[in-house]
């Protein structure tokens, strides 16, 4: 039976069919739906872990425990999980272990554009790369068997267009996988220097064996075509090549590490001109050049952003695509905005009013860097806001510190903010940290986390008490405040900045998109009472529109959160129908 599936959904199906029983992940676009879909299978224990490092450790434990396990993350998540990755490469596995990593060329929803293929080389772990949903399912199953055959974790790399494209998938039955025996083996699983030295020898042997395998595996295949031009490619780039150059010979690489060197040499000898088409870095190209083969790649193709069929045709075949201009009017950009009713809006209103320096973090609230809030000064990586604020304080001193806050979400705080907070306490910092507790992981589309009180399957569980946690690490000043109570919020921020000790403000209000959050419905501006002072525009709500002559509220966007009524001094905003 054929079903239309996202690449991510097909990955989950592949893991299910392979008999995988443990899945762990931290959400991150474009990888999130893998684990959301895994959680739908009753046979698979699934969890949102606090971060990617813990997630990979859980998957490693499950593998050593004899199960097939899977761990999923976005590209930057692999940085967090890199520590266990490099050593599980040495220990190898018991049950098959598959690590999913989703890169984001073009940075649709990311802070950098790193090419995770280098991790495979650096950690000496094989990597596969599918090019559509069917291959997502097939390659994940393949990855489990390679993992067990070669005693290695296997990374499967996706990119946004593979993760988030739906195409038809033939589904099959679940394999009856039996849990392997748990055997104590300190020489294999305890990586102290003496054991690790011996395991490193095994890793090198394994990579040699995998190089041979790569040449023989049907993961890498030649598609015959004209002998004038040959293209070496993989993943989504393969699809673009087939569209742009349908008649050329193609070497499609499914195992991107180790590359099939012999097959590449063979292929290069068949064609007059050899192109290599890959998104981001010249990962294949550098290795092909090292084989002494002349190949054209990044001298013509960009190292930034996504490729497409037109880009390939333009750059490699010199075809130009001109479209006639229909309109010469400038088209205003439409950047993402915080939703109507978003709890962060009240907080940003206050931070901007107080003209504070704000070290920011990863989440919906990063949008506070854009107009009209323009409140965030930095955004580096998950949890960085706290360390960055502390570093600023140590560099610039107490006066600067009193004008600076760190902000990060509840999930981000648990992910890797808590260690930064401990650093502030331990090293006698006085910074003020705002934890934006909106009762959910927002940006990635509403995942539970340790502060929400629910598991990935929606079961009630123990809830981390943020207030107690902060107190336990030594923060004595912890205040909980509703960001929509703007007067109180401003008072608290001012007081905490003045205090000569570290402090945490928990800005608490649930995400406006949560189903249980109910507002009273659309508001309108009374044209009689409105003095056109435009204070309401300062909150940056997408529902409030400046018509020049007057202001109005777009009734289809307004949810009725009434934040605007709190900044209006003339009682000019009222419920529709009153």
């Amino acid at each position, binding site marked *: 039976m054929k079903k239309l599936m996202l690449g991510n959904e097909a990955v989950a199906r592949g893991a299910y069919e392979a008999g995988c029983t443990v899945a762990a992940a931290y959400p991150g676009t474009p990888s999130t739906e893998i684990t959301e879909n895994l959680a739908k299978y009753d046979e698979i224990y699934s969890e949102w872990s606090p971060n990617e490092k813990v997630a990979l450790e859980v998957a490693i434990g499950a593998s050593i425990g004899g199960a097939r396990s899977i761990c999923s993350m976005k590209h930057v998540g692999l940085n967090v999980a890199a520590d266990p990755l490099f050593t599980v490469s040495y220990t190898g596995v018991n049950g098959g272990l598959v690590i999913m990593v989703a890169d984001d060329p073009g940075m649709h929803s990311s802070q950098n554009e790193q090419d995770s293929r280098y991790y495979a080389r650096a950690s000496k772990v094989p990597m596969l790369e599918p090019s559509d949903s069917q291959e997502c399912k097939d390659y994940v199953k393949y990855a489990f068997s390679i993992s067990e055959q070669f005693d290695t974790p296997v990374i499967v790399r996706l990119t946004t*267009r593979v993760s988030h494209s*739906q195409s038809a998938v033939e589904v099959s039955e679940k394999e009856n996988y039996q849990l392997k025996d748990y055997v104590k083996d300190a020489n294999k699983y305890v990586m102290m220097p003496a054991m690790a030295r011996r395991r490193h020898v095994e890793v090198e042997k394994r990579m040699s064996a995998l190089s041979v395998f790569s040449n023989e595996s049907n993961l890498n295949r030649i598609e015959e075509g004209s002998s004038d031009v040959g293209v070496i490619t993989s993943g989504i780039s393969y699809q673009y090549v087939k569209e742009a150059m349908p008649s050329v010979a193609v070497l499609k690489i499914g195992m991107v590490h180790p590359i099939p060197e012999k097959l590449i040499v063979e292929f290069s000898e068949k064609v007059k001109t050899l192109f290599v088409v890959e998104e981001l870095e010249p990962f294949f190209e550098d290795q092909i050049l090292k084989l002494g083969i002349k190949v054209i790649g990044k001298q013509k193709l960009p190292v930034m952003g996504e490729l497409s069929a037109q880009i390939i045709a333009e750059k490699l075949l010199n075809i130009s695509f001109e479209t006639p201009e229909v309109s010469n009017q400038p088209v205003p950009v439409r950047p993402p905005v915080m939703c109507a009713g978003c709890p962060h809006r009240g907080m940003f209103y206050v931070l901007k009013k107080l003209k504070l320096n704000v070290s920011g973090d990863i989440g919906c609230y990063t949008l506070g860097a854009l107009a009209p809030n323009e409140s965030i000064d930095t955004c580096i990586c998950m949890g960085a806001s706290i360390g960055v604020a502390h570093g600023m304080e140590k560099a610039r001193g107490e006066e600067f510190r009193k004008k600076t806050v760190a902000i990060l979400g509840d999930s981000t705080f648990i992910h890797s903010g808590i260690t930064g907070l401990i650093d502030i306490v331990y090293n006698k910092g006085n910074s003020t940290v705002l934890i934006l507790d909106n009762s959910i992981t927002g*940006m990635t589309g509403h995942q539970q986390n340790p502060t929400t009180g629910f598991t990935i399957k929606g079961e009630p569980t123990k809830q981390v008490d943020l207030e107690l946690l902060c107190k336990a690490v030594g923060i004595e000043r912890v205040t909980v405040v509703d960001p929509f109570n703007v007067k109180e919020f401003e008072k608290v921020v001012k007081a905490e900045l003045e205090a000569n000790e570290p402090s945490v403000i928990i800005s608490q209000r649930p995400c406006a998109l949560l189903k249980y959050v109910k507002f009273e419905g659309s508001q309108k501006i009374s044209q009689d009472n409105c003095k056109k002072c435009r204070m309401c525009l300062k909150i940056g709500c997408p529902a409030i529109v400046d018509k020049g002559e007057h202001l109005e509220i777009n009734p289809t966007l307004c949810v009725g959160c009434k934040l605007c009524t709190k900044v209006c001094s003339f009682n000019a905003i009222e419920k529709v129908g009153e």
Partner: protein
Amino acid sequence: MKKLNLLIVGVGGQGTLLASRILGTVALKLNFDVKVSEVHGMSQRGGSVVTYVKFGDKIYSPLIEKGEADLIIAFEQLEALRWIDYLSKDGKMIINEQVINPMPVIIGKAKYPENIIETLNKAHQIFSLDALRIASECGTTKAVNIVLLGVMARLTGIDKEIFNQAIHEVVPAKVLEVNIKAFDEGYNYHK
């Protein structure tokens, strides 16, 4: 119909993803190869969003590029203008007349373009309608997407019954009735 390159463009939160899921289901029922490519994450927060839907004998690239779209469904006027270059020479565009101001317009840093539909009409076949009003009359403003699919079904000549089945499979039961009504209103819409 041998193939169809369809773009759905709009503003994050307008229900473009549901529309694309219905269309993917329709394509499979018509025994086409199909790819539906969408954007999740940050841009879904009120930003400009696009979904690519491609039907055909064999689909490779999931993307539709400039000048390649046979049909564009624009959920909002400014988004219609933004994506017009993607329409092929003989392509058609369905435009929901709704206006949603982007933040640069709201804060007075940019001007919302004027006479968008008239401008686009000069170069292309445009079908515009107030789908928000029609959806609202059916019972929910959330059914804008389905009203537009109704218009699309008529323009492409794809069997209405196939759409009907796809909507039944994809749309949750409790809002099925209002969505079927919205589809019919779109299908039967005449200016």
